[in-house]
């Protein structure tokens, strides 16, 4: 029960941040791939660096022994990403923003997006036994992180990672070419 409550609260803040960042706009998402609006990148990179520090801090302070680490298998990560990118650049969707778009009343997300996600999940379910066993084996490194991979101190990896991202954020900020800014929202 407490678990469900936590999930709802985290989801609430997640949906809030997606909507407030303006990720519920088709143009915002698609224009990332045309290098005309870097809002999504700014949003994601900021979340990445804050999340990374928060997680490492949480582990360091003893609130968790570890955080779940997604398995790296190079081919399926990249191939999945390519297919994902094709869909995202066409419809201006990712699973999270479809739900957020539905939340602000967009009927294309309710009717097209949500049903597409369910059908996509079914299609993957049918393909999974055929493709995943061989696909996931190529370049499979297991549940590794950059720290375990290099053998360096996690804090040091985090420091460099954070610096790279902040530098990227500053450089992208200098570009200042958000053509969908001010946002398309608001009539």
């Amino acid at each position, binding site marked *: 029960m407490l678990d*469900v409550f936590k*999930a*709802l609260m*985290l*989801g609430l803040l*997640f*949906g809030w941040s*997606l909507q*407030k960042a*303006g990720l519920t706009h*088709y*143009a915002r998402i*698609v224009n990332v*791939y045309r290098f005309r609006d870097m809002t999504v990148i700014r*949003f994601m990179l*900021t*979340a990445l660096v804050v*999340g990374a520090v*928060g*997680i490492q801090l949480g582990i360091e302070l003893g*609130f*968790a022994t570890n955080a*779940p*680490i*997604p*398995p*790296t298998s190079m081919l*399926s990560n*990249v191939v999945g*990403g390519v297919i*994902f*990118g094709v*869909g*995202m*650049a*066409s419809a201006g969707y990712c*699973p*999270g923003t479809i739900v957020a778009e539905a*939340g602000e*009343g967009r009927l*294309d997300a309710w*009717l*097209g997006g949500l049903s*597409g996600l*369910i059908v996509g*999940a*079914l*299609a993957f379910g*049918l393909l*999974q036994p055929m*493709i995943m066993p061989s696909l996931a084996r190529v370049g499979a490194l297991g549940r590794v992180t*950059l720290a*375990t991979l*290099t053998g360096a*101190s996690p804090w*040091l990896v985090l420091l460099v990672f954070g*610096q790279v991202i902040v*530098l990227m954020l500053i450089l992208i900020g200098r570009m200042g070419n958000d053509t969908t800014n*001010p946002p*398309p929202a608001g009539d």
Partner: protein
Amino acid sequence: MCDDLPVRPWFPLLSVLAITALAQPLSAQCASNASSCVTCHETQGLRPVLDSAQIWHVDHGFGDLCASCHGGDPASPTKEEAHLGLRQPLADAANSCTGCHTDDSSKYAERYLRAAVSMAPPPHVTPPTTVPPKVTASPTANRVLISLAALLSVALFFAVRHARATESRPLLSCLRDKIWSPYSAGVLLGLVVAFAEVICGRPLALSGAFDKLAAYLGRWLFPSSQYYGHIMTAGVTWQVWLMVGVLAGSFASSKLSGEARFRWLPDTQWEPRFGASRTLRLVVAFFGAVLVQMGAGIAGGCTSGLAISGGAVLAPAAFLFMLGMFAGGIPVAWFWYRERAA
């Protein structure tokens, strides 16, 4: 615009306080995931089963299938309970595979037994205390990173030298803003990700919710499917509740800023390019969503579950996924918006 939030000195402090205040140390972190086996045995590079040369592990690495062969109870919070009824699969290879491979189990059993014999020492003789690959501290990597950090510090110093000061205003009025600076919203999302990972032991993943919901349909449509029978079981899981939360959060945010209203088409850019047809938008939305969900399935997560949550634990998988996203998205976006021959 709340532009100033991330640079306010109290913000990082608040995040730390929030994490510490609301957290309780998890003694049973291991049981917080669907398969606790993986959470305990395969994290932080310790005993990476997928890495091992044992082909039966590699073959089954595509799902959380440990219990299918090894037995035990992955849902139990304590090690003792979770390990009750553990089996040594290769000791009884003939029966171990029948749980899933009902028709042709002997084929696999023979193959694995052959492989096991050729390995020295055979794992069914020596219990599988696979030596944890030692995460040795690497002084070279540390030194390289320290030099890199020093270089980047200089670059950052010059980059932020011209940082401008912004005016601050009451925090609560931000709630009604139509849009936040992506940095402020990003800080919020980052905290949510850290919370989900540290306190709930889960990635902030949404695509999985649709896999779980589609599984209701899947097991009804394809009753003999191994995938829906053993790997993707239907259920209203944590992620489904997360999704409900996202729906509510987006509604609350858009309602407060007066943005919530029914509409069929994206606000900008769609109509000038594709016209005002609702059908066309629905078709593109549908097939786009299909591709997005399939891509997430293959890659092992979506933008939030893999790219952000995985990136925040510094997993290479996340960065490979983002690479793929751009490799797929850039040509397609170009294609849709290419200059049409006049």
